């Protein structure tokens, strides 16, 4: 696999499949490959971190700095996603808001896994279980364990994220009106650095179409595409000469 990736004719869109094979194979070689991939393929970091966790990975001391840098970038991503979620707080955009909540849960999980590579694996994974249980007492125990296991400067932002995800109040921010929602969703699609999932991007395009099928969607052509079939299909549909009604039907079929 590594040999193949080094060859000149290698297609980088195959890397997610290599990652899947390594995750299934397990063992020290897979862990070494995944660790190397983690710093080479930032767009795939959530999947790689999950695969490393499955492989029982423990980071050596000289790598802790890199792991903490990665955690910082995940915190930044989470904050950006919260900002995006507030900006798409509208009546017709509930589905986009839900997709962004799933994005936040993925970052939350990745952060727990990253910290489990550095600090007590068992305590951190058990804290995640407790926090995800939905039981108030268990959640409080989980938060307490985190407080005792990881440094305060990391624990505070992590607990803020946990509380945001667990809480029901995030969308008490001001409702946004139609035209501003369209701008916010366009902004969301342009945030390539956040590596939002195919589902989030598809559902956003779908919602935009539902709200305004006659808007100018030419901007989709210049969004850097990740090898992502659903998104490509959406882009094709946006560019093709079909009636707006037909496009909406096809997009719905493609997304759902």
């Amino acid at each position: 696999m590594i040999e193949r990736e080094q060859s000149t004719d290698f297609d980088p869109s195959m890397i997610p499949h290599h990652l899947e094979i390594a995750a299934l194979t397990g063992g020290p070689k897979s862990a070494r490959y995944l660790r190397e991939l983690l710093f080479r393929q930032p767009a795939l970091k959530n999947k790689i971190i999950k695969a490393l966790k499955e492989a029982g990975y423990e980071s050596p001391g000289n790598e802790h700095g890199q792991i903490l840098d990665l955690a910082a970038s995940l915190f930044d991503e989470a904050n950006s996603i919260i900002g995006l979620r507030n900006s798409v707080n509208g009546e017709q955009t509930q589905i986009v808001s839900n997709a962004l909540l799933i994005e936040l849960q993925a970052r939350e999980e990745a952060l727990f896994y990253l910290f489990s590579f550095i600090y007590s694996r068992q305590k951190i994974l058990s804290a995640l279980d407790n926090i995800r249980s939905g039981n108030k007492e268990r959640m409080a125990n989980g938060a307490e364990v985190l407080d005792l296991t990881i440094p305060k400067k990391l624990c505070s932002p992590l607990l803020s994220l946990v509380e945001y995800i667990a809480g029901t109040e995030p969308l008490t921010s001001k409702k946004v009106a139609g035209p501003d929602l369209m701008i916010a969703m366009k902004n969301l699609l342009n945030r390539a650095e956040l590596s939002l999932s195919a589902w989030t991007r598809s559902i956003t395009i779908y919602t935009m179409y539902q709200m305004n099928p006659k808007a100018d969607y030419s901007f989709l052509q210049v969004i850097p595409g990740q090898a992502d079939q659903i998104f490509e299909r959406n882009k094709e549909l946006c560019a093709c000469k079909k009636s707006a009604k037909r496009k909406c039907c096809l997009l719905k079929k493609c997304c759902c």
Partner: protein
Amino acid sequence: MAALFSSGDLNAIIRAGQKLLSLLGSADEQDRIRAAVVIGRVADKNFYTSLIQLLNDPSVAVQRQAISASASTRNIKLVPYLFSKLHVDELRRSIITASHAQGEEVID
């Protein structure tokens, strides 16, 4: 046929080998699929050259069966041939399964 290969009887092995060769060279897709099934059941890593032939078969159904047989044959020499088809959507799932069945050497 797989039982003949593992019987230890030289005559039986030769007969099974001849039959397998005829299936491998058959113009009928179903015969070539059977050849891949037999190789998968024999699960002998020395059959890899026949599997390479089947992995390069023009029929996707034959390729799929050959990929499945590769998982039980477990010969690292098959990995480049498996990976060369990873871009084919309909084969990808079975390639991923067959590749990880080769063990950690697949990572190299």
